[in-house]
C-alpha cells in the first residue's frame, strides 16, 4: 500500500504540502503520468508537477534557472547541455531506450517490408529533421544501410510524422516504437533490423538546484526501479 | 421627367408626411423652419432611406414603393447636394467633381474636363488640385455644388446650396443655378431647400412650405411669397410681387410700367416679376403730386389695415394697373396722420432702387 510506504520514507516524507517539479520530455507524457500518480500515492502531501515540453526547451529553462528537481531528457545532447552548465547533481543515468520503426497506415497498403522499400519513387515518406533525435537516428540508419531517402517533409518532431501517417497524407514515416504503441490501431508498425544501429537513450538526473533533493532522488529511484521500468515498457520503451 | 412623391416617415417623435409633384424642367423650393423635415424629404427622394409608407416615381420609373427601394441610389440619376459638403477627403477637388461623370461612365479625360468646366462655373478653377482639407468653408461649399451639378442628374436635390457663401459668391452661384436649372430644353426636376425667399424667387416655380413634417402651404412661388397664409411664410416672405414682361429699365405690366433694377439674367421681352418689400412702399394722400425720386407712383384704395409686429400692414384694393393687392408697411403714427382707413384713396410711391426685377417662371 502506498500510504504505508510513505511513512517508511523517514525524514523526507509525510508532512506538509510539498511539490516536486519533474521536467520531462513530451514523449514521456503517458509513462510519467502514471509514475506521477504512483509517486503521489506513496508520498502523502507531495504534489508531483510534470513540466512536459521538448527536451531542448526544458534544457533552456533549467539553464535559465527554472525551479526543477528532476530532468528526464529524450536524448543525451540536451542532458549534456545541463550537465555542462553545472546543473546536474551526480551523473545522469539512462532509464529508457527507444528505437525507430516504420509507421504505415493500417493494412500497409503500399506493402512496405523493409527500410530499403522507403526509397521507392512513388512513396510519400516523412521523417524527422536531423536536429531532433529521431531525425539524427534516421540519418544514422541511412548511413548504416546506404539507403538515401528523399522525404516529402522533415518534421520538427516525431508526433508530426505520426500524424501525417495517421491521416494518410504520408505512405510511411519513421517514428519511435513508443509512438506506434500509443497510436493504437491507427497505424501499423513495420519493424526493421537496422533500427538497432541507432538506439536512442533517455537519461534522467537529479538537478543541483533541486529544492526537494530528497524527493527528487526518490523519484529518480522510482523511474529507474522496477515499477518505473514496467510502466515504461508498457508504452513501448526499451530498458537499458 | 416628372417627379412624383408621396412620403410618410416616422423618426422618433418626428413624423413627415408630404405629397407633391415636380414637373420636368421645373424647380420646387422647399421652405420651412429648422427641423421641419426638409433634409429628410431629400433623403427619401435620393433613396438614402426607405419611407415607412410611400411612393416615389421619376418619369416612368418607380424609384421607391414601400416597403422596398426599387431603384438603388446610384441608379436613380439623382444629384444630391447635402447640407454638409462631405467632399471625399482623399480625392483632389477636381477628382471630387469628376466623381459623378466618372461613375456614370465617362472616360477619365472627359470627366476631368467636365469637372474643370463646373469648377470654373462656380469660380473655383484655381482650387482644382487642392485636397478638401485645404479649402475654406465657402470654397468647399462651392466645390460641393460643382460636384452635384457635374453628374448632369435627372433629379437634382439641393440642400441650402448658398449657405456659407459670401456676398459676392451667393449671387454668382444663384445666377449659375438659375442658368443651369432653367436652361432651355432641360427636362430635369429640381428640389431646392432654402431659408432665403430670394433663392425661391430667383430659382423656383413652385414652393412647398413644411412645418413639423406637414405641408402647410404650396403653390406658385410668387403666390405663396406674396400672399403667405402662415405666419412662418409671412416672416420669410411677405414681399410684393408684380408680374409682367421685362424691359430695359423695369417691367411692363398690364396696368403700366414699373421702374426697377433688373437682375443680370433678365432678358428684355421675357416674362418677369418685380419684387419689392412692403417696407419700401410710401403712401401719400390722393392727388398729392410730387416730383421726387421715386419712379413708381400709382393710385390705389386702402383695402385692409392690420397690425404686423411694430408696424401696420396696409393692403390695397382696386388700384390702378399694378397697384391691386399690394402691401405697404407703415408706422401707426403715419396711419393716424394720414387718417387711413379701408376705402381711403391713396397714392403709392416706390423707389426704383428698391424694386428688383427677376425672370418669372410658371404658368
Amino acid at each position: 500500500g502506498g500510504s504505508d510506504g510513505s511513512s517508511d520514507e523517514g525524514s523526507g516524507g509525510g508532512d506538509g504540502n510539498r511539490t516536486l517539479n519533474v521536467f520531462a520530455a513530451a514523449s514521456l507524457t503517458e509513462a510519467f503520468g502514471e509514475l506521477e500518480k504512483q509517486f503521489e500515492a506513496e508520498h502523502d502531501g507531495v504534489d508531483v508537477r510534470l513540466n512536459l515540453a521538448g527536451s531542448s526547451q526544458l534544457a533552456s529553462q533549467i539553464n535559465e534557472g527554472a525551479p526543477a528537481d528532476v530532468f528526464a531528457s529524450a536524448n543525451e545532447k540536451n542532458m549534456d547541455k545541463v550537465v555542462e552548465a553545472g546543473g546536474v547533481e551526480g551523473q545522469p543515468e539512462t532509464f529508457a531506450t527507444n528505437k525507430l520503426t516504420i509507421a504505415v497506415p493500417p493494412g500497409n497498403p503500399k506493402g512496405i517490408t523493409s527500410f530499403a522499400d522507403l526509397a521507392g519513387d512513388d512513396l510519400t515518406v516523412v521523417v524527422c529533421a536531423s536536429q531532433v533525435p529521431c531525425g539524427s537516428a534516421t540519418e544514422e540508419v541511412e548511413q548504416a544501410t546506404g539507403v538515401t531517402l528523399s522525404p516529402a517533409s522533415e518534421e520538427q518532431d516525431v508526433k508530426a510524422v505520426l500524424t501525417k501517417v495517421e491521416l494518410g497524407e504520408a505512405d510511411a514515416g519513421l517514428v519511435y516504437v513508443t509512438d506506434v504503441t500509443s497510436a493504437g490501431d491507427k497505424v501499423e508498425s513495420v519493424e526493421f533490423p537496422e533500427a538497432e544501429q541507432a538506439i536512442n537513450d533517455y537519461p534522467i538526473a537529479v538537478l543541483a538546484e533541486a529544492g526537494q533533493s530528497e524527493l527528487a532522488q526518490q523519484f529518480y529511484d522510482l523511474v529507474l526501479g522496477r515499477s518505473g521500468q514496467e510502466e515504461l515498457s508498457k508504452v513501448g520503451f526499451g530498458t537499458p | 421627367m416628372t417627379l412624383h412623391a408621396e412620403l410618410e416617415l416616422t423618426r422618433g417623435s418626428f413624423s413627415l408626411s408630404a405629397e407633391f409633384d415636380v414637373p420636368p424642367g421645373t424647380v420646387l423650393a422647399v421652405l420651412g423652419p429648422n427641423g421641419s423635415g426638409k433634409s429628410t424629404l431629400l433623403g427619401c427622394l435620393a433613396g438614402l432611406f426607405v419611407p415607412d409608407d410611400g411612393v416615389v416615381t421619376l418619369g416612368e420609373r418607380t424609384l421607391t414603393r414601400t416597403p422596398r427601394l426599387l431603384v438603388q441610389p446610384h441608379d436613380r440619376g439623382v444629384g444630391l447636394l447635402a447640407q454638409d459638403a462631405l467632399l471625399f477627403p482623399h480625392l483632389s477637388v477636381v477628382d471630387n467633381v469628376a466623381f459623378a461623370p466618372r461613375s456614370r461612365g465617362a472616360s477619365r479625360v472627359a470627366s476631368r474636363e467636365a469637372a474643370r468646366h463646373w469648377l470654373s462655373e462656380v469660380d473655383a478653377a484655381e482650387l482644382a488640385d487642392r485636397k478638401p482639407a485645404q479649402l475654406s468653408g465657402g470654397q468647399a461649399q462651392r466645390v460641393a455644388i460643382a460636384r452635384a451639378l457635374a453628374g448632369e442628374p435627372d433629379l437634382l436635390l439641393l440642400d441650402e446650396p448658398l449657405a456659407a457663401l459670401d456676398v459676392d459668391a451667393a449671387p454668382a452661384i444663384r445666377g449659375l443655378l438659375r442658368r443651369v436649372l432653367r436652361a432651355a430644353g432641360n427636362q430635369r426636376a429640381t428640389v431646392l431647400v432654402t431659408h432665403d425667399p430670394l433663392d425661391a424667387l430667383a430659382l423656383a416655380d413652385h414652393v412647398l412650405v413644411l412645418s413639423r413634417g406637414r405641408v402647410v402651404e404650396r403653390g406658385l412661388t410668387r403666390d405663396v411669397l406674396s400672399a403667405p397664409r402662415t405666419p412662418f411664410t409671412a416672416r420669410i416672405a411677405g414681399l410684393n410681387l408684380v408680374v409682367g414682361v421685362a424691359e430695359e429699365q423695369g417691367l411692363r405690366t398690364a396696368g403700366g410700367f414699373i421702374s426697377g433694377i433688373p437682375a443680370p439674367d433678365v432678358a428684355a421681352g421675357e416674362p418677369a416679376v418685380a419684387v419689392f418689400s412692403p417696407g419700401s412702399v410710401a403712401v401719400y394722400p390722393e392727388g398729392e403730386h410730387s416730383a421726387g425720386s421715386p419712379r413708381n407712383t400709382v393710385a390705389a384704395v386702402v383695402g385692409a389695415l392690420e397690425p404686423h409686429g411694430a408696424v401696420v400692414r396696409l393692403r390695397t384694393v382696386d388700384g390702378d394697373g399694378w397697384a391691386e393687392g399690394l402691401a405697404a408697411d407703415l408706422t401707426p403714427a403715419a396711419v393716424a396722420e394720414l387718417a387711413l382707413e379701408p376705402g381711403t384713396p391713396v397714392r403709392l410711391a416706390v423707389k426704383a432702387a428698391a424694386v428688383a426685377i427677376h425672370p418669372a417662371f410658371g404658368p
Partner: protein
Amino acid sequence: MLWIPAGLALALVVLPVVGLLARTDYARLPELLTSSASLNALQLSLVTAVLSTVFCVLLGVPLAVVLARSRSRGVRVLRAVVLLPLVLPPVVGGLALLFLLGRNGFLGYLLDVTAGIRIPFTTAAVVIAQTFVAMPFLVVSLEGALRGAGDRYELVASTLGARPWTVFRRVTVPLLLPALGSGAVLSFARALGEFGATITFAGSLEGVTRTLPLEVYNQAEADVDSAVALALLLIVVAVLVIAVARPRAVEGRP
C-alpha cells in the same frame, strides 16, 4: 461583386473548421470535458487570457494614442518597435522573456535579490507571456483606426477646456470603441491560443501554467483525436466569451 471575394475568404476560413467538425470524435467529448486536466487547463486559460486582455487594453490603448497622435519624429521609430513581438517566433519570444525575467536575467535577478520574487513558471508568467504576444495586435489595430478617424473631435474638445487626459477618456476612447472592441477580440484570441512563448517562459505545469493549448499539445502526444476534440472546446469557449463580452455598444455605430 464584393460577395465573390468575400465568399471565398469566408470559405477559406470556414471550410477547414467544418472539416474539423466533421472529423471530430464526439463520443469522447464528455469524457474529455470532465477530466480534471482539461477543466484545470480551461479555467487557467480563461483567467489568464482575460487578465492579459485587460492589461493589453490598459497599457495598449494609451500607447496607440501616443503613437498615432504624436508629431515628433522619434515616435515614428517607436512604431516599428511595437511590431517586434508580432514577428518574433513565439518560442523565441519566450526565450526573450526568460532572458529578461529569468533568474539569471537582468530584471529577474533584481527582482529575486531585492524582493524574492521569481516570475518564471508561475501563473503570472503565463499572463506576461500572453500580454507580450497579444499587445501588438491591440496597438496596431487601434493605431490604424485612430489614423483613419483623424483628430477633429479631439481638437474641439481641447478648445472646450478638456485637458489631454479628459480628451482621452471622454472623446478618444468612446469614439474608438468599435476599433477597441476588435482590437480586444484580437488580443484575447491571440492570448487564448498562445503556446510557444508560454511553454518556454512559463513551462507547462498542470493547474499553474498549463493552459488549454498546452494541454492540447500534451493530448496530441497521446492521441491526435482527443487533441482535436479539446481544440473544439477551446473554439467554443472563445466564441462564447467573445460573443458575451463584446458589448452591444461596440457593435453599433458610434
